[in-house]
């Protein structure tokens, strides 16, 4: 078992320490080859005594700045975590509405990836914009947020509206001319590879936070489907490449989520399900036997392998319900009119901590709110 490592490049960040060791011990040779045994059973050069190794290790440790001490060093990595401590550290990101929070068991969990699936016009972007603001609230994650968007253009008008209502609903927090926009970062992404590069560049930013700003505690990707749906063709080799990229992106996100306590929210589009017998796209994933929206049966884009990359999946649906027919019969106010209304619902498709549930919500000028019925 031999892995070849290039000495530089962002993908080798993990091995930073080890490459340094290699430089000390093996000054010659164009390529570093580590056997896994060497790396992890820590078979050091035979002429190194234990004490020498120890002092080397200690100096290395001391040289590391305190902010990067959270990076995995083998000494801490190999110890199990205390779950009781874990419990108190775990935070939820509030959605800004107590009803929706209750439906999700306290909000969007940090340290994991949550996917929002819906057809266009159901409020994915609305909800994710809202999260950018609520992430700053002091009883929640109290961090800044990063918004990576691939569906253009950036919704400035809606953003300004939400900003206004958020400021007016939290006047004390944003007195002293503190601007919530100072803690929201946006970045456009054009392709899936671009997204991966942006994410890899992010690491140094997360490791060395600026003192004047809050730590990044929320990453929103809106939407993942747009990045993948154009770039890859529907043949075996491309699909394989595509799913390898899914897992790569997801693993980087999960690593950040774990190491820095970040909540990751990814939106995804849906595709129509034309025929049940058509391949495996009709296979049931999660609690809902079929996902229905606007009278059509849909399934999330990007298929089964992407479903393996997220921790929880939420589905936003809408359908038209007829209300006020009875009123129309009883009184003359409605005449023969039928009062139609959009009924929007949030479903938990799957989540490791939640059973299936659904909750009705409405989209208002001030944001997305749950309805208690």
């Amino acid at each position, binding site marked *: *078992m031999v*892995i070849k490592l290039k000495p530089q490049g962002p993908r080798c960040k*993990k091995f930073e320490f080890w490459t340094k060791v290699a430089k000390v011990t093996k000054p010659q040779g164009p390529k570093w080859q580590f056997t*896994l045994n060497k*790396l*992890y*059973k820590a078979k050091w050069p035979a002429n190194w005594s234990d004490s020498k190794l120890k002092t080397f290790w200690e100096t290395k440790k001391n040289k590391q700045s305190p902010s990067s001490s959270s990076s*995995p060093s*083998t000494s801490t*990595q*190999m110890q*199990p*975590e*205390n*779950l*009781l401590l*874990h*419990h108190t550290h*775990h935070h939820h990101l509030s959605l800004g509405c107590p009803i929706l929070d209750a439906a999700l*068991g306290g909000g969007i*969990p940090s*340290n*994991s*990836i949550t996917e929002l699936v819906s057809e266009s016009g159901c409020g994915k972007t609305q909800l994710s914009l809202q999260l950018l603001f609520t992430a700053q609230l002091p009883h929640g994650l109290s961090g800044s947020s990063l918004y990576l968007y691939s569906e253009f253009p950036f919704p400035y008008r809606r953003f300004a509206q939400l900003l206004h209502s958020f400021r007016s609903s939290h006047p004390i927090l944003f007195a002293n001319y503190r601007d919530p926009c100072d803690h929201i970062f946006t970045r456009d992404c054009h392709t899936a590879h671009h997204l991966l590069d942006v994410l890899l560049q992010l690491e140094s930013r997360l490791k060395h936070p600026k003192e004047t700003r809050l730590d990044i505690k929320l990453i929103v990707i809106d939407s993942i489907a747009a990045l993948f749906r154009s770039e890859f063709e529907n043949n*075996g080799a491309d699909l394989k490449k595509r*799913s*390898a*990229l*899914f*897992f*790569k992106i*997801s*693993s980087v996100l*999960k*690593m950040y*989520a*774990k*190491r820095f306590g970040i909540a990751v929210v990814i939106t995804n589009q849906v595709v129509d399900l034309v025929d049940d017998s058509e*391949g*495996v796209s009709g*296979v*049931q*994933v*999660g*609690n809902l*036997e079929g996902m229905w929206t606007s009278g059509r049966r849909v399934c999330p884009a990007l*298929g*089964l*392998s992407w*479903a*393996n990359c*997220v*921790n929880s*999946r939420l589905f936003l649906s809408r359908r038209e319900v007829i209300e006020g027919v009875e009123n129309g019969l009883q009184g003359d106010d409605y005449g023969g009119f039928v009062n139609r209304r959009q009924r929007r619902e949030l479903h938990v*498709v*799957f989540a*490791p*901590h939640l*059973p299936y549930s659904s909750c009705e919500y409405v989209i208002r000028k001030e944001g997305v709110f749950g309805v208690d019925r």
Partner: protein
Amino acid sequence: MEVLRLPLSASQKGKLISAGYTSIASLSSVSPSHLALELKVSETEALEILKSVSDGSRLQSTSSSFTIVNGAQSAWDMLQEEETSVHITTSCADLDSILGGGISCKEVTEIGGVPGIGKTQLGIQLAVNVQIPYDYGGVGGKAIYIDTEGSFMVERALQIAEACSADMAEYSRLHHKGPQACEVKTMQPKDFLENIFYFRVCSYTEQIALTNYLDKFITEHKDVKVVIIDSITFHFRQDFDDMALRTRILSGMALNLMKLARKFGLAVVVLNQVTTKYADGQFHLALALGDSWSHSSTNRIILHWNGNERYAYIDKSPSLRSASAPYSVTPKGIRPSDSNNKRIKHV
């Protein structure tokens, strides 16, 4: 029996005796290479000597525990061991009955299914159930939980532990009426969490390192009775250009896990994802990591949807018949399916 009576040449007997091997028992646990070194003979000759020793001992004694290779067992021993082997309950009676009492220790069990079917739930349930003390018919061990996907939620584990603790209290109330009830200590939900060793793994190198390290860790914590890997797949589905390397790493890891299971008598539960496979002109579902991986586990259970119910199906097992049984995921954890009619299907 003495070395002198073995069918060996005089010079070989002389060498054996001068090296201090006078009885056959003293030769029973010597490796050929060691013997060759000590007698200063070739390795093939040493092998010949050991062969005749084993032949001789077989003639003399019928006792099966007397073997030449260290650690070898006869099938009879294994059968007896099998009968005393322990199982970890899944908290679902139907599932336990098709599994012959639960997830069996000393074996590697692979569990696969689509996202949201309850793989992680089953993993957490097992991590909790392994801690049920002997007095309550459990194993009374601890659990190692290796999380590669970040799906382990402490709040959920606490919920399941609370339900398990409540069930135990109920059980002791029913079975130990009177003063005995106080004697059996009930476990608090927090105790359950303390006994789960949780490792979060962020890359495949860490995963390999951890599996190598487990041996040492379990030697220090002998009461670990289950190792759960959720999931084995995640880090191996990204960026592997060299598929042969992946296969080698995976089979190395599988060997490691099997060794752990046998050495410490613990259950290894490996969760796997589902992927689509193209064969015979159409796509169908299969467990991830390919065909060579499918040899790596002793038992293989596939979780799937059947209408609105969750089913577990035994896909592969050397000792169990292939069968399927319904189960459900409730707020309390894995529980029997709520419909009354019995629906265990033997295929």
